[in-house]
């Protein structure tokens, strides 16, 4: 649950707009850096690594909203310049498929970019300390720490946006105070209550304005944090195990991919054209 599965219109305008502005600025800078070198190699690589992350993020592994991200692995393959671009592409396509809001694409890009960059830095540092033979351990540890940090970032975003006063969130003819439909015909032709007033022990309108409960109803950040930090570790461990196994496998088969990235080989020759004339 590292990226934000918050629907459109829940976070305040200033927050998601700020997310968009910062994310687009970051994408503009990294794109300029990316096209400085051979862009023909980077576009297909970005495409396949983003597609890999998309396959992972759109496949639920446990039916209570757990899915893997492959963000750390993506960053290891792409490097720090292309990682934020891949993050933007992945969240944009996910949003178009209904997975995550369109307004939170900017914030999601920032969270996933942070996840990728921190994961990459941690993996490289741990690989230096533990050695290349323990690449899977480095990848697993980097994944757990990174996911914990990005979850903290997610809670921080909800905290920033969650202080809104729900009194301003009118919910239509349904009264949020007692979950009772307001009678659309003033004379009381019909009424429909989800709960009766007795269950609340008071009649609608008994509450004093400004009394207890007034102005409450902003998102409950404490409860949200408690749940994600309770459910989260299982997901972090699952993803860490998967990443560790994949990185261990790839490190044995093609170590350059893991330790130097997919763009390590500076030149690419078309088979049959090793002289590079075409």
């Amino acid at each position, binding site marked *: 649950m590292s990226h934000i599965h918050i629907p459109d219109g829940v976070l305040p305008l200033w927050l998601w707009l700020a997310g968009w502005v910062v994310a687009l600025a970051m*994408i503009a800078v990294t794109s300029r850096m990316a096209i400085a070198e051979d862009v023909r190699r980077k576009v*297909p690589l970005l495409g396949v690594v983003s597609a890999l992350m998309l396959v992972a993020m759109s496949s639920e592994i446990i039916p209570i909203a757990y899915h893997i991200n492959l963000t750390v692995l993506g960053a290891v393959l792409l490097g720090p310049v292309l990682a934020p671009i891949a993050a933007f592409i992945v969240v944009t396509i996910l949003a178009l498929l209904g997975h995550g809001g369109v*307004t939170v694409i900017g914030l999601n890009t920032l969270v996933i970019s942070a996840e990728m960059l921190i994961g990459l830095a941690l993996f490289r540092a741990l690989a230096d300390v533990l050695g290349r033979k323990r690449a899977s351990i480095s990848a697993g540890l980097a994944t757990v720490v990174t996911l914990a940090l990005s979850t903290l970032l997610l809670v921080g975003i909800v905290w920033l946006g969650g202080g809104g006063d729900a009194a301003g*969130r009118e919910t239509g003819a*349904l009264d*949020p105070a007692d979950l009772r439909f307001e009678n659309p015909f003033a004379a009381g032709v019909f009424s429909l209550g989800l709960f009766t007033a007795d269950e609340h022990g008071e009649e609608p309108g008994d509450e004093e304005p400004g009394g207890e409960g007034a102005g409450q109803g902003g998102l409950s950040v404490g409860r949200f944090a408690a*749940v994600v930090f309770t459910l989260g570790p299982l997901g972090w461990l699952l993803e860490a195990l998967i990443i560790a196994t994949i990185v261990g496998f790839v490190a044995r088969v093609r170590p350059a991919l893991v330790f130097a990235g997919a763009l390590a080989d500076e030149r690419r020759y078309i088979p049959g054209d090793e002289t590079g004339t*075409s």
Partner: protein
Amino acid sequence: MNIAAIDSSATFGTSWLHRTAPRAKLAAFVFVLAAVIATWNVLILAAIGLVLTAAVVSARVRAGLAASLALYPTIFAAVFAFTAAPDLITGVTIILKATVAALAAVTLVLTTPYPQVFAPLQHVLPTVVGDALLMTYRSLFLLIDKFGNLLTAVRLRSGFSARQPLRNAKAATRALGGLLLYSIDLAQRDHDVMRLRGYEGRLRVTTPRSEAPARDAALVVAAAGVTGLSVLVRVYAAALNPFSWMAPLAALAILVVVLLASRRSR
């Protein structure tokens, strides 16, 4: 994620919505999204959802596919609503917001081929991002196909067993590792092809000319009307909320008419 079914629906559909200009559909999507963002009225959200359902029915899109895609984010929204919403009705509103926004996105994606969805984005995004968006969608097909084949191969070699979840996980993860290596080779092959075809940093997508400009305009105006209604009810909530039940009722009437018309046309 059944990406092949999504693409087939977008490419081979012949309904009025499929034939509407992609730009008009994108504009309508933005308007509907603005309506979802603006409102906190559960009845207005329900009305928008019903109108979108009518659009999906009239577009003769596979209902099961649209429902599965639109309801998937409901799981995540429910987790968020359960943990963060202060009361039941706010929770229901959050879930409805996610589902209705997803339904709007899904309606767009199921009736518009992906290059046409990405083409307008290409104009505003840096070239490397616009091109990589197109390459990502193309790679998705190949990778999902390949992963399916890999899992079939593992199954045929008795790699999966109901009684050994650990072994299953190991086999699936190794298949993912194999998929990763395949995808890197795929990127190299794509590079070769693009180099041979003279790619210099811009994939061009041609947008088809509008078939019926009046229909396109009507769709955009209708979507703008939905946004207007949503904003109006938000601004004059105190006066209009008691009447907001009329919106889902009207939307339900539209849905019933569309359902009857589609049944008759069969």
